[in-house]
């Protein structure tokens, strides 16, 4: 299977779709490759037929109005040579050839270890939302939403709308931090107001976090700091977001503080490779969209048109800075894990085995932390916060793939 086009976009979330739309409007051939069965990323998951907001509707209509080749269910795992990517699909390996590339790989939730966090039915906040969006009945289920970030509110409102009994939202940030955010984010107040109405009657507690999840074979109840003990069916817990930078690093793009480095045209340190959206720093929907548009225009050679969008991006960047300051994680969260608490879920590596290590590399060599199937995507965000370690190198394949996919590559 092969595909040749002018621009390939990796990631069909808002940034990727915005980039692809701009490329297609410029008259160039563009393909969007994404590992999920349908486009939309996490925020617009399952919204092709019933968009939940005007922004989603507007963008999904734009996408349908132009010629974009969508390659869904395809996981990019390797760059055999410059200008070529390989993706694994259920039908085999797909070879993508291009002039320019836009990486819109988004972000994942940050998970922090605490006793009981590996129990079934303890999930990410976005994790539980994704499951419900894709068919999990949640009506009448008791849910505690916890962790940090604006995602908690969106998730709680969504789950409640689907009939869940949301018992509590526990936000680790202090009320002082949140107050400053509330004032600073005035421009988003209509959005905040709508959320508030949907969440009427649900306690939102700041400076509150999960100390322990209890249960034997699955979650039964949680203990919270400043929240007592609460019996529940699901704990939806995520501590803000971590950019997905693995593919960019594989391609040799420089990163800084865990974000892909880009210039004003969203170009990475590798020529003709652009990055937009959460992979360049956590900033929310509007910033992702405008960065995607700029990347798409620049990739299509329309630098002047891209420049016109710089002020909009600047405005949204200010909001992003405020967002990240507000939801900065407090030091107390570094002490949630007990000695026997598992930090690396793939290899079952405990906190006590890790805390004596000097570096991520030493931890990998001595304990196999981060060497399982997720390749450190889950524990990496935790050890970065707990110990200040950051992954040192990314090697192909960037994701576990079938052996036949690798053999195919070798034989070419």
């Amino acid at each position, binding site marked *: 299977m092969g595909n040749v086009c002018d621009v390939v976009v990796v990631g069909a979330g808002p940034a990727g779709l915005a980039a692809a739309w701009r490329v297609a409007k410029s008259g160039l051939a563009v393909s969007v490759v994404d*590992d*999920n*069965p*349908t486009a939309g990323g*996490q925020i617009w998951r*399952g919204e092709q037929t019933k968009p939940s907001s005007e922004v989603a509707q507007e963008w999904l209509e734009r996408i349908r109005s132009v010629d974009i080749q969508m390659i869904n*269910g395809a*996981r990019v795992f390797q760059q055999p040579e410059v200008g070529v990517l390989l993706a694994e699909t259920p039908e085999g390996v797909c070879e993508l050839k291009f002039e320019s590339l836009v990486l819109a790989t988004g972000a*994942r*939730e940050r*998970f922090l270890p605490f006793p009981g966090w*590996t*129990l*079934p*039915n*303890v*999930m*990410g906040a*976005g*994790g*539980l*939302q*994704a*499951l*419900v969006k*894709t*068919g*999990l*009945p949640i009506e009448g289920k008791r849910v505690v939403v916890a962790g940090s970030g604006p995602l908690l509110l969106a998730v709680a409102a969504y789950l409640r709308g689907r009939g869940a009994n949301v018992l509590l939202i526990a936000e680790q940030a202090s009320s002082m931090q949140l107050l400053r955010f509330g004032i600073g984010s005035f421009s988003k107040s209509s959005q905040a107001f709508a959320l508030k109405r949907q969440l009427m009657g649900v306690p939102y507690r700041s400076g509150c976090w999960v100390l322990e999840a209890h249960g034997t*074979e*699955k979650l039964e109840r949680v203990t919270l700091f400043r929240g007592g003990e609460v019996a529940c069916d699901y704990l939806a817990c995520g501590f803000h977001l971590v950019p997905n930078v693995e593919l960019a690093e594989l391609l040799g793009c420089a990163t800084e503080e865990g974000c892909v480095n880009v210039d004003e045209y969203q170009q990475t340190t590798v020529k003709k490779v652009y990055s937009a959206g959460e992979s360049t720093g956590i900033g929310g929907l509007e910033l992702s969209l405008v960065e995607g548009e700029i990347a798409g225009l620049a990739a299509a050679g329309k630098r002047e048109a891209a420049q016109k969008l710089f002020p909009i991006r600047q405005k949204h960047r200010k909001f992003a800075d405020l967002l990240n300051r507000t939801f900065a994680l407090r030091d107390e969260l570094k002490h949630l894990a007990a000695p026997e608490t*598992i930090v690396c*879920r*793939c*290899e*079952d590596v405990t906190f006590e085995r890790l805390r004596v290590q000097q570096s991520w590399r030493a931890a990998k060599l001595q304990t196999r932390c981060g060497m*399982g*199937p*997720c390749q450190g*995507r*889950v524990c990496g965000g935790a050890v970065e916060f707990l110990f200040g370690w950051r992954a040192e190198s990314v090697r192909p394949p960037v994701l*576990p793939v079938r052996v036949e996919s690798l053999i195919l590559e070798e034989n070419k």
Partner: protein
Amino acid sequence: MPETVSLVVNGISVEMPAGSMVSAAILKTGTYAFRRSATGEPRGPLCGMGICFECRVVIDGEPHCRSCQTVCKDGMEVRTDG
């Protein structure tokens, strides 16, 4: 496209809205442990987006499938290892 699909999880038949993921179908049957960890702990889905690999199960005989990124199909046979 039919509105629902029917699949089998550990011998239990389950109906799901078309477009649902296998992970949701498994949970709907009351199965919460999708696999056992390296030290034998029960594990279920965490990230819901194909990152964590905790939801991997056997689908139609193929092991290590991420159930959160696999769309339910009529007649699918799913086996968990929890």
